[in-house]
């Protein structure tokens, strides 16, 4: 998506793709210290309807924004639409973290994609999240995968393109550019937020 972006990689999950808050917070702190403009973190922990967002993550994300670092996270995959919609999970449910839902090739909200059910825990944008080409462990090396974890990096990549095009747009200004340039899909804001993320022309 953004071939000229400079990548900083922080490992915060283990070999089973799980990890603890402390590692994730340390990774965010490291990214802020290294002046990363965009942080893509495809991880999360489910919450229930009525659960508040984490004050710790909200404070961390707000401080990151103020320092010019935009955090982007998946909305989560706990829904079974149309029957059941689960709330945007932790930490994407923090107001200062950009929450990304998933759509399919026809731009329909993916059946697993979580929705904005809790105060502050809105979906901000959507991006492709079904049958996305990705890397895989040896020996297959490549696979297709689905999930809001596949959608969030599209938004991160487009944020990087916008950051390259607008060197002074960082933090909240970069977030606002992403939101204001999104393509409205006609889906409820609860499910798609401002709409489909759009790359700069």
């Amino acid at each position, binding site marked *: 998506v953004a071939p000229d972006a400079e990548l900083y990689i922080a490992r915060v999950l283990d070999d089973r793709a*799980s990890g603890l808050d*402390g590692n994730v917070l340390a990774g965010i702190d490291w990214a802020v210290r290294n002046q990363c403009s965009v942080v893509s973190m495809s991880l999360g922990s489910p*919450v229930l309807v009525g659960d508040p967002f984490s004050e710790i993550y909200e404070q*961390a994300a707000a*401080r990151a924004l103020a*320092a010019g670092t935009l955090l982007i996270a998946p909305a989560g995959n706990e829904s079974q639409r149309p029957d059941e919609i689960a709330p945007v999970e932790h930490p994407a449910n923090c107001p200062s973290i950009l929450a990304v839902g998933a759509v399919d090739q026809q731009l329909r909200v*993916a059946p697993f994609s979580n929705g904005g059910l809790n105060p502050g825990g809105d979906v901000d944008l959507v991006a492709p*999240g*079904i049958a996305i080409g990705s890397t895989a462990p040896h020996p297959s090396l490549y696979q297709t995968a689905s999930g809001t974890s596949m959608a969030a990096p599209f938004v991160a990549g487009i944020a990087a393109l916008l950051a390259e095009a607008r060197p002074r747009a960082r933090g909240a200004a970069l977030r606002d550019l992403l939101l204001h340039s999104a393509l409205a899909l006609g889906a409820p804001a609860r499910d798609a937020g401002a709409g489909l993320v759009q790359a700069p022309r």
Partner: protein
Amino acid sequence: MMGRFAFGWDRRGAAAVNRANVAVAVADDARDRIYEVAAVCRAVGLDHTSTLTDIGVLLGSVELDNLLSLRAVPGVVAVEVEREFRLKQYLWGR
């Protein structure tokens, strides 16, 4: 104040059912003295392991009985028990 998931294991992996790993948020107006806040947190029982200065967070573990004392330390605005994360891949799509 706290996450929903309390873990009965400390950072060293030893069974300690009365302890929890915690993250402690330091107030904006106390960030320039975060090490002083950390010292007071240690005095009320925080086994302090990391100081994340750029986001104003302390990491460590604490006995559950001391959680309220930790939250009451001047300059502390939130204490949350650590929770687990997973990569968010929807498995049927593999």
